[in-house]
């Protein structure tokens, strides 16, 4: 008898939790759960009006998020500026020690560029990649253990396509993984799901740069067993996927316990404006 009452109480509690609307609730949990499952099942439709509706919804949410995060982004930026000011003297000394002869390097670079152009013409090589880059503003960044990405204020309507490369100054930062009408999402090279075909110079070894979820560096996978890679070598995009242009610098090689990693040139925490390949 007592067991029956206990079971009845249990069933009443479950029924009440799922079906009963609270004093100020407009929907029952059961109804909303069914709606959520229906919404989730719509994820399978990647084109047509559902996709357009999804794009508009995302645009609205991203713009809303940009305004809501505004004050916090402002505080964060000022804090970073303050830190930069504190580190200025150290940075100045470091640069002084390196003593780069920039004008010589620029002239050398110009020479190699023109030589490269002549050699390409000799073998009739055509540039299949677009050299057009669109400058866009970072609306906000999302850096959680599951996702390292930034949202930019250019989308579909501005000619941005899925999979194209994004740069900060002249350095590679990631690729477009989501395009809406007015906004797009860039998956940063540091994200766990990021896999970019790269070439390591001067040895010319090909590899896949794989994000580790860390902001500063990434892993190098599928390196040839016999290679001449050493610390300080520069990693560039190889362009073998046919979407990301070749020769965009990414970072330099460093080694921990005989394993090679890539240290990024870009500080992903300070992205304000980026350039996206059109």
């Amino acid at each position: 008898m007592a067991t029956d009452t206990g079971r009845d109480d249990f069933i009443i509690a479950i029924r009440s939790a799922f079906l009963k609307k609270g004093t100020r609730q407009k929907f029952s949990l059961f109804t909303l759960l069914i709606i959520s499952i229906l919404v989730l099942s719509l994820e399978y439709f990647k084109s047509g009006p559902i996709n357009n509706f999804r794009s508009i919804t995302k645009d609205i949410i991203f713009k809303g998020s940009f305004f809501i995060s505004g004050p916090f982004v402002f505080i964060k930026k000022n804090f970073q500026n303050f830190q930069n000011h504190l580190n200025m003297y150290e940075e100045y000394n470091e640069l002084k020690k390196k003593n780069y002869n920039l004008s010589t390097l620029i002239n050398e670079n110009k020479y190699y560029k023109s030589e490269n152009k002549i050699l390409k013409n000799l073998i009739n090589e055509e540039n299949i990649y677009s050299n057009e880059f669109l400058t866009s503003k970072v609306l906000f960044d999302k850096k959680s253990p599951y996702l390292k990405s930034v949202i930019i204020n250019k989308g579909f309507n501005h000619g941005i396509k899925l999979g194209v490369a994004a740069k900060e100054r002249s350095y590679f930062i990631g690729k477009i993984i989501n395009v809406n009408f007015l906004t797009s999402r860039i998956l940063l090279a540091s994200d766990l799901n990021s896999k970019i075909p790269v070439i390591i110079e001067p040895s010319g070894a090909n590899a896949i740069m794989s994000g580790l979820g860390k902001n500063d560096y990434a892993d190098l996978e599928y390196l040839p067993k016999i290679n001449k890679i050493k610390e300080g070598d520069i990693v560039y995009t190889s362009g073998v996927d046919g979407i990301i242009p070749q020769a965009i610098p990414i970072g330099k090689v460093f080694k921990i316990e005989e394993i090679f990693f890539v240290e990024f040139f870009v500080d992903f925490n300070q992205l304000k404006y980026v350039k996206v390949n059109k």
Partner: protein
Amino acid sequence: MGQGNIKKIYHSFIHAFPLLFLFFLAFTGFDLSFFLFKNNYSFNFIYLVIFYWVLKKPDRLGYGLIFLAGIINDVIQNFPIGISPINYLLLCSIAAFIRNRTLVPSLLYDWIFFLIAIVIISSVNFLILTMVFEYPIKYGTLMFGSFITFIIYPAFSKLFDQINLIDLRQENAE
């Protein structure tokens, strides 16, 4: 602006605090992620807010608005749209069930039930993401994130208790 108006705004802010906090978290994706043993972890504050307020004051957070917050969270986090509403509503149903079954509320019981609830929800989340959407997500990271969210529940519970108390005092004064 008169002092009366400032007081009114303050009262409205305290009254709508759970809702404002929930939408702030959803829109900004705020999670205080940090590195521990070379791995990146983060708290899930939304679970704390939903569980506490649905358990203690269900009229402060409407289920419809929780559903909406879930949709926003999915867009911001780049999850398949609909997964967070399912998680949040399941959490609501567990909290509502506990509320119906509890005669004498206690922080310890709430804390233990919160652990059970987030373990169930994280497992459902993991199963849907990996099996249906083939989303590459680490089970260990997800569970550790849930565990650290569980650890901070008492602190947030005390904080929310105070906010609830201020709101009650204001209601009684009116």
